[in-house]
């Protein structure tokens, strides 16, 4: 029986190239390049919109070389009629537009950057395309394939539904975020004493919090194969971490428009993020940009200054669709320790 299991495991490993065949490899990539990285997008919603500047570093641990924020730069955004807004530096390397600034559909914008060292950069002109309105959000429960009965990954798949316009090429990007209520047990909080041993240390507050989170993962789409149809497309996955779905969860979806060039940039980025070492991997490719150094146009820059129209929708998750819950992880602490949490009940809750 033991042998049989081994064979099954071995064969399954063989055909699926499962992750247990993947291990860390100590490689020094030897190369070190400090390239300007520009990340940011302005949308048709109210600001402030954020543009971040940093410099790339040697691939490896932070002990070898760390990514440095690019501080004290001067940034402004100009539209085609000459109106311009300056950005102000918030936290280091992050620059913000005024709160009342919003892009308008059909207008074009360029981003100008002058670094602290005097190097000047400019983006290509980006025209804001209109985004079709979201019809609805569809949520499905999904259990990922697993070799184990006990441990598996599960969660909620988020689908966007909309009507794609027929007479134009459309490029989309989605940003999924969530808001959920958490019930913590601050009374069970434990601290470590002088000797490092756990001792009960109950806290008075707080049991109920509302946590908002932005979910990672890049979801983009182009309509070349589905032009003019009603489309339901998978745009995100919210993993059941034993905490999110304990009470009530609200999925917030932003559907954004992209220009063709922006789509190509995100597509390359997406390819890069999807590389898992298997036989279907796309080959690594050089990430492009729409930012040019005015003095040395051949200089490599990473990142894209994007402009988007936004359609937004939200939905409460019906917990009944979850067929198997992950074991719950109750927070034995003040619920406000979670990033993005607040004890204030949002006005639209219930």
């Amino acid at each position: 029986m033991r042998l049989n299991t081994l064979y099954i495991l071995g064969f399954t490993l063989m055909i699926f190239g499962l992750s247990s065949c993947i291990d860390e490899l100590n490689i020094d990539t030897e190369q070190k390049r400090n390239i300007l990285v520009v990340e940011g997008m302005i949308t048709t919603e109210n600001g402030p919109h954020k543009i971040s500047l940093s410099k790339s570093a040697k691939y490896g641990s932070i002990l070898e070389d760390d990514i440095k924020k690019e501080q004290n730069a001067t940034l402004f955004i100009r539209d085609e009629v000459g109106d311009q807004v300056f950005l102000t530096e918030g936290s280091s390397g992050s620059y913000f537009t005024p709160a009342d600034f919003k892009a308008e559909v059909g207008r074009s914008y360029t981003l100008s950057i002058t670094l602290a060292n005097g190097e000047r950069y400019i983006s290509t002109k980006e025209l804001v395309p209109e985004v079709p309105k979201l019809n609805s959000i569809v949520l499905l429960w999904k259990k990922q394939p697993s070799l184990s009965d006990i441990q598996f990954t599960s969660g909620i798949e988020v689908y966007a539904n909309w009507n794609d316009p027929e007479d134009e090429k459309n490029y989309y990007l989605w940003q999924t975020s969530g808001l959920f209520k958490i019930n913590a047990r601050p009374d069970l909080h434990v601290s470590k004493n002088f000797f490092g041993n756990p001792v009960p240390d109950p806290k008075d507050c707080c049991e109920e919090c509302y946590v908002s989170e932005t979910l990672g993962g890049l979801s983009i789409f182009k309509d070349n194969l589905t032009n003019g149809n009603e489309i339901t497309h998978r745009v995100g996955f919210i993993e059941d971490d034993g905490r999110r779905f304990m009470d009530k969860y609200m999925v917030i979806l932003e559907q954004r428009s992209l220009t063709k060039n922006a789509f190509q940039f995100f597509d390359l980025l997406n390819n890069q993020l999807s590389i898992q070492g298997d036989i279907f991997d796309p080959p690594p490719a050089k990430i492009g940009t729409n930012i040019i150094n005015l003095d040395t146009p051949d200089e490599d820059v990473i990142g894209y200054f994007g402009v988007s129209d936004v359609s937004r929708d939200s939905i409460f998750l019906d917990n009944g669709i979850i067929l198997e819950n992950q074991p719950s992880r109750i927070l034995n602490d003040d619920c406000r320790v979670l990033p993005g949490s607040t004890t204030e009940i949002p006005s639209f809750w219930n």
Partner: protein
Amino acid sequence: MFHYDIVRYKYLVLIGFLLVSIIGKAQTTIGKDDGKNGPHTITVYVNDAEDKSQLIGANVIVKENGEGDITNERGRTRLNLTSGNYTLEVSYLGYETKEEKIVVLGKGTIRIKLTQSAETLEEVIISSEGADQNVRNTDLGKQVMSIATIEALPPFVGEADILKSITLLPGVSSVGEASAGFNVRGSNADQNLILLGGAPLYNPSHLFGFFSAFNTDLIQDISIYKGGIPANYGGRASSIIDLRYKRGDQDNWGGKASLGLVSAKASLSGPVFTEDLTVMVAGRSSYSNWILNAVNDAAVSNSSANFYDLNAIVDYDIADDFSVRYAFYRSNDDFSLASDTSFTWSNQNHTISLDKNFGEKFKIELSAVDASYNFGIVDNSPFSNFTIDSKIKDQGLNFAAKYFVADNHDISIGAQTKLIKIQPGDLNRVNPESPIEPFSVKNEKAMESGIFAQHNFELTKYLGVSYGLRYNTFRFLGPNQVPVYDPLLPRNEENILSFTEYGDNDLITDYSGFEPRASLRLSMTESFSLKFGYNKMYQYIHLISSTTTIAPTDVWKLSDTYLKPQEVTQYSGGLFKNFNNNSIEASVEVFYKDLQNILDYKDGATLILNNNLESDLLNGIGRAYGVELYLEKKTGNFTGWLSYTYSRSERKVVGSFPEEIINDGDWYASNFDKPHSLSIVGDYKLGKRTKVSSIFTYSTGRPTTYPEAKFNYQNGTNIAYYDNRNTFRVPDYHRLDLSLTFGWDTENKWLSGDWVLSLYNVYGRKNAFSVFFDDIPGSPPQAFRLSVLGIPFPSLSYNFEF
């Protein structure tokens, strides 16, 4: 006294005749006495007594007059004898020499079966050619492998594997375990022409390269041409892998079967009514689904990995000098993961060939081939399911005539033509609710033809020449819609000015070219020769793949207005020396290859469902060069070989626009540039039925692209930034495999088979199939290695004959 002798003589003859009729076969009578004295044509077939395979290059000598010949590639030779009694002496390396007494009365056929010599039983390498052929002929860069050699190697998951065995030869390498293609002397995987019984095979593997897609039980032998390619082969630019089928058993019905852990196969062959009509059928199927289903998890048990292949071969000898063969082959793969996507591919070939001899000196061969390769992807994800189907249809007619001027002197001429149709991808919805709009990438059609002449002759014992010329034409035909690009701008979708429409069979563009081939042998001694070779080849079909294997995500594309034919010119030379009465073979070969119109792709290219593929591709040149050492011990209890190759394979892409330049226009390593490559294969016989075999293989890690920097994007994840391609290498590859073969002779033939116990990757080397970079929370962004089989992998199989 005299009278007495006569009487005694007659008496002996009478007893002799009686003995013949009692024992049956001590003397064979050939032909019917028609009163004519002859000479009569006697056709002699020589077979292995055990597995009935034809023995090629066996020596047949008539003891009475010393005349004789060696058997041809069908295991056959012809003798011209007048009526009378003769003794034939038939000999072959590794076999017991046999004397066969015959009485010739008229024209007829005799079949002689040789038994393998006791001291080398079951482990001799059955070369289809004579023992000293490597030194004696003009072939350069040619290697013949017999199935016996391949079956003697440690198997992988219980299966002897032809393509994996080929990669143990000098100058042949593969990218890794899960990769269907292989690279010959620094050339791309699509530059290999794989012929199975004369029909081209587009995908030679099952399960993404884990298994070869054909059944070894039916294969007589494999010829691998790395250089010095004869003019009768064309269409692919780098190498020829010619797999020839066996003929069915002409005496009895029998078969072979093998049970492994993942798959089982069986073959059956025998005569129908007469020994002139033989049939051979074979099948192989995986039962991996059973294993997957046994896993107690819905997701895994809903996955499937299925493959099968089927063969049927019918041979009919219409007359002694006229035979016809029909061969059918089908392979199928179906691979689906629980995650909604499934991949399928299948090859299907029909071949009919006629083989006619006109006397001893002249023969013609005619064949018709219908080959197809279908592949597809099915995506069953909710809401937006789709299928993508692709097809290649390749239908050809071949004619060849060969005139044997004298021993070691022959001339061949021939013509080949084929129609190739490619459906590069049809997108459809699975159910009507899917938003996917059906879409077809424009189909392609072309007519590819070639004529050739080849002349092989031996001027003296010390000088042999073989040269040929092939002329190809390729006509790319409509219907098609060809974009016209702005010549001043980079070729991309935005810069299409207009489209030119072509009707059905309209000529869109054509290419033609001469392909000269030549090789020369200079022999210093009987066992030592020097050879030189040159060959040029064009290729009109391109495999465009972003992956390292031949998979359903690939695109096959014909040369058209924008994609010029691939062109490879090779110069090679070699030293060949045999030792110890030809029992040890040694050679050193060098080569240099010039490659033109090699494709690479732009960063972020879209390959699948792309109607204007030329706008995502780049045109480059390549060069490959190397030296190959080979040492083989062919006889004795210990046999095996050592092969070492030093070679480089590089590419250069310099277009007119910045996006059309790779690595600043410098030479860069191809994906399969592995400078050092070493294989040591050994086979040691411990007893009559017991032996151990081993393979050790080492090669430099293949080139890969490493990040030049990390940057933050999208919520602080560290992302790798790549620039120049293939400037680094994955760690070196090495691996040891062992196998033990044993069996017992019993009364029951079902139980007398061979057990093969093998251990793949004995010391569990985690060979990197790929190295990739990721930023996983909890550790710094770093390199990861995917090893496909990073553990010792045991398997057991049972092979028996019935």
